[in-house]
């Protein structure tokens, strides 16, 4: 079983069809499988439902698929950074299902772990709970959320071996490991492709069982969405927060 493919296009061969559901890892532009997204764009496949925390920025990440109008529906938690997205959404060309970020992450994990539904406090009593079953446990109210499972997941990792074992780097991990488990086929792009045995078995984030195809992507400049810095000599400098 050879899992290694020569390039993004080859790694998606036979996997794409109109109307399918695709999960794409990443948070903002951090840890996104940009080369695989580009190959999906080039394929021309359309009417996609895309599950991803964000929708990229104009021309970068999932912004690419929005430009070419290949996306019919997004399932996301925050899509604030994309003008083309706003234009299509306000024009009624694009459907969006907002999920609270933790609910989205858990729905994906559940889908990959054979759990069809779970209960969460998140969103109880809000628009998010409309039309969903609710249930009381020990005096508290919860919303039932369903597991998510896709036809295809595309993920980005720092290192991978030819068996498909993956290791992610810093906050580029984010949604990638859950998505890798929650699709009929998962394709991974890795910055460093190594041989089995080169990764420490105690520190593999995604076991190879979840990865059907893997490609090595050349190192390129990674995009930064919000470049925040401090000057040398600054004593106090706030650590940034956020809820996107």
């Amino acid at each position, binding site marked *: 079983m050879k899992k290694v493919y020569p390039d993004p296009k080859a790694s998606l061969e036979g996997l794409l069809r109109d109307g399918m559901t695709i999960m794409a890892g990443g948070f903002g532009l951090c840890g996104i499988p940009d080369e695989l997204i580009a190959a999906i764009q080039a394929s021309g496949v359309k009417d996609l439902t895309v599950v991803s925390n964000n929708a990229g920025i104009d021309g970068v990440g999932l912004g690419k698929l929005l430009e070419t109008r290949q996306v019919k529906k997004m399932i996301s938690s925050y899509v604030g950074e994309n003008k083309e997205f706003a234009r299509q959404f306000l024009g009624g060309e694009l459907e969006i299902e907002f999920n609270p970020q933790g609910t989205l992450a858990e729905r994906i994990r559940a889908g990959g772990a054979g759990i069809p539904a779970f209960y969460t406090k998140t969103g109880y009593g809000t628009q998010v709970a409309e039309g969903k079953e609710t249930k009381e446990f020990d005096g508290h109210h919860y919303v039932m959320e369903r597991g998510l499972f896709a036809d295809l997941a595309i993920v980005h990792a720092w290192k991978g071996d030819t068996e498909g074992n993956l290791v992610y780097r810093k906050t580029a*991990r984010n949604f990638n490991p859950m998505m890798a488990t929650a699709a009929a086929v998962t394709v991974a792009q890795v910055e460093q492709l190594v041989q089995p045995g080169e990764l420490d078995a105690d520190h593999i984030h995604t076991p190879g069982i979840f990865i059907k195809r893997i490609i090595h992507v050349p190192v390129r400049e990674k995009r930064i969405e919000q470049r925040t810095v401090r000057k040398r000599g600054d004593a106090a400098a*706030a650590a940034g927060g956020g809820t996107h």
Partner: protein
Amino acid sequence: MAWTREQMAERAAKELKDGFYVNLGIGIPTLVSNYIPDGMTVQLQSENGMLGMGPFPYEGEEDPDLINAGKQTITALPTTSYFTSADSFGMIRGGHINLSILGAMQVAENGDLANWMIPGKMVKGMGGAMDLVAGVKKVVVVMEHVAKNKDGSESAKLLKSCDLPLTGTRVVDMVITDLGVFTIDKEGTGGMTLVELADGVTEDEIKGKTEGAYTVALR
């Protein structure tokens, strides 16, 4: 006279305790990290998968793989750990974070919170806000006491009930505005209580700018 953004952040920092794990929202809440008292250890969680957030990087040392939930470049600390988004929200929803400090559009006297959408405007999404307010043990809102409208008028933000779509029901424990500090008995029947006035602010000024009912118990 009223508190500045910095003074509101400084006041919010008084809710920190040694050993706390804290999640800070965008805006004024972010500034709270500047007011962590010396000798107090507080670990900042970033819901995109990091515990132990450090300050912004020096110029030229930005790492695209190391960002916070506001998508800003940040740094790590010796205590830092990274994890998945699922584990991150397990931590949040499971009640392991001691304190969440975040902004708001409206807060109701029963602790309801609205801070994610305005009908008719472009909706960007709730991000992790709904999970944070539902899961974190103590939720502190930091916001201006009133909203300034385009026509120059002001609208109350501390209300009997929110008219904007909710982020969570009965989730807010404390509201810090530029005019003062309120506590909310979100799980009981104690309602909202004015407990502090900002420098030079009178009870009357707050009364005129607050729609929600509250009792006064200045301390």
